[in-house]
């Protein structure tokens, strides 16, 4: 029981206002979930769902298509939000984002490699649930490891450096994906196009269940590092003197970010700017300490992604806008605004 309670120690570091925002974001997450499952090319009314049994077609749409899809959007949003927040904390850089620094591209390259070169070797189930996510995670981890070495351990002096390296890695990954596109067959090409634009259309219970479990446990594993990320903002030597094992912390943040970004990219393709924008908005609302920022970014990222997915489904219904296009269209101007307003870049 104590162990269980002590997990929630991070709540002690939240101010009253931050707690209020945090609980509000949790509620918001569930509201967006309910709204997202009820709207689309088929509309379900929330209250009707409670009272009557939907007929069989509606039922299939709701339980087999809509709910997995919305869940996936919510969890991918949460992953990108929290990994953006923790990477920004780790790099001590407000511009860090799994997309900008090349982590998503690494994951996409990993995924593309398996799609084009590996799909013949595995059964479909094994391929979708294990081979693809594993390859995407490895790609993400490889990129973060490269960044780590090139920025000499993510030191403060390595910041601009890191973004430049991100550009280079993004370029290299596009080359890789380009080559794979060139040699791919028609059916593989369809799969590849899906990565570059991002979509939740492929969600089914069978595919998302392992991913959801991985994402939930990784996020739960990340949250206790929040206080340590706060201390890290004083600089590595200071954080060390306050009792933080820096190497362990770096390892944990890097690996956990790679896992959830890798899984997310494996299932939904490259969805840009969410990891950058969400932590900034969360900071603007309630403050910068990571005990608040990490969990709040997860819930807010989830809400944002579910609403983006909802938009992508209803904007030109019954057709769909790829959700990655939508988030980039909204996120890129925000990023520009951020650059113009930032004092420290």
């Amino acid at each position: 029981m104590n162990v269980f309670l002590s997990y929630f120690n991070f709540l002690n570091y939240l101010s009253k206002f931050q707690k209020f925002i945090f609980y509000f974001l949790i509620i918001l997450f569930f509201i967006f979930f309910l709204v997202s499952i009820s709207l689309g090319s088929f509309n379900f009314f929330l209250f009707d769902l409670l009272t009557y049994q939907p007929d069989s077609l509606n039922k299939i749409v709701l339980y087999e298509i809509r709910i997995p899809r919305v869940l996936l959007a919510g969890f991918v949003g949460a992953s990108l939000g929290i990994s953006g927040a923790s990477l920004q904390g780790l790099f001590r850089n407000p511009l860090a984002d799994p997309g900008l620094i090349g982590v998503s591209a690494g994951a996409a390259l990993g995924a593309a490699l398996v799609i084009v070169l590996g799909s013949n070797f595995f059964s479909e189930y094994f391929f979708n649930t294990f081979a693809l996510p594993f390859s995407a995670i490895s790609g993400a981890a490889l990129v973060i490891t490269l960044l780590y070495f090139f920025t000499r351990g993510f030191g403060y002096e390595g910041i601009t450096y890191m973004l430049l390296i991100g550009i280079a890695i993004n370029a290299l990954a596009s080359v890789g994906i380009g080559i794979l596109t060139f040699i791919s067959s028609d059916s593989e090409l369809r799969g590849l196009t899906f990565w570059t634009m991002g979509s939740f259309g492929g969600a089914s219970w069978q595919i998302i269940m392992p991913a959801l479990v991985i994402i939930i446990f990784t996020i739960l594993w990340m949250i206790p590092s929040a206080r340590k990320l706060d201390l890290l903002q004083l600089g590595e030597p200071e954080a060390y003197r306050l009792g933080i094992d820096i190497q362990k912390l770096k390892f944990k943040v890097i690996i956990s970010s790679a896992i959830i970004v890798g899984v997310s990219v494996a299932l939904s393709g490259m969805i840009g700017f969410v990891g950058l924008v969400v932590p900034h908005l969360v900071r603007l609302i309630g403050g910068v300490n990571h005990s608040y920022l990490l969990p709040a970014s997860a819930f807010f990222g989830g809400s944002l992604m579910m609403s983006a997915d909802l938009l992508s489904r209803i904007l030109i219904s019954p057709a769909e806008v790829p959700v990655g296009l939508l988030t980039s269209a909204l996120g890129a101007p925000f990023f520009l605004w951020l650059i113009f307003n930032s004092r420290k870049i």
Partner: protein
Amino acid sequence: MSINISSLTYEVDNKKILNEISLKIELGEILCVLGPNGSGKSTLVNLISGNFEATKGDIFFDKVDLKKISIEDRAFTRSVMTQSQPIVFDFTVREIIEMGWLKRGNFNFSKDFKYVFNQVVDEASIENLTEKKFNVLSGGEQKRVHLARTLIQAWRPSNSNDPKYIFLDEPTANLDINYEKKVMEIVRKKADEGIGVLLIVHDINLACKYSDKIAVLKDGFLLGFGSPENILTEEILSNAYDLPVKVIKNPLSFEY
């Protein structure tokens, strides 16, 4: 109870930054390290803090080898204030000070904390800054916030006898003489409460007035270690700074 440093040597690329340094930091005393720029003072602090690992020699905290103390336990024994790095995100002063509070793993966060927080904020004279953003403060104010954070880390309940040490690397840089005096008086008070203090300052007068022991470093060598009267001689100081230094006893006995 003391920190014993014996034959401490630190090399980078075969260049000796510190050479066979032996010192002792006693509880309840202020040891002041003097020396010209580049003499190895900050390196010494980094070694004793555990940030750097010595090439040769030993550091014992109360007879326990520093290498055998976990990173977490070290934080409970010593707290360190050095030249700080810029902080990117907009933390409030309260949050920065809170970072020094190590008492973890229970829900009694607010009980002792409020009392100690008010105490260190009062000591560092930053009562009216606590709700401000850290990054809008002046350099001197930021320094005092970091001092408060260092003090809160070194806090112990009144019924505890755990040895505590504070290492301060130029705590008075950027401060006007009023705050300089205040900071030195806090440091003196902490030493009188039984905390061992290692202090680096450039102002020889400050060192002389407030410290119990003085060590003088030059080019990584220890020129002298002992009481201020024995160490602050014209011979040692002239040698350390490569300048003819004349020692005059202050007729006001070092009062400002």
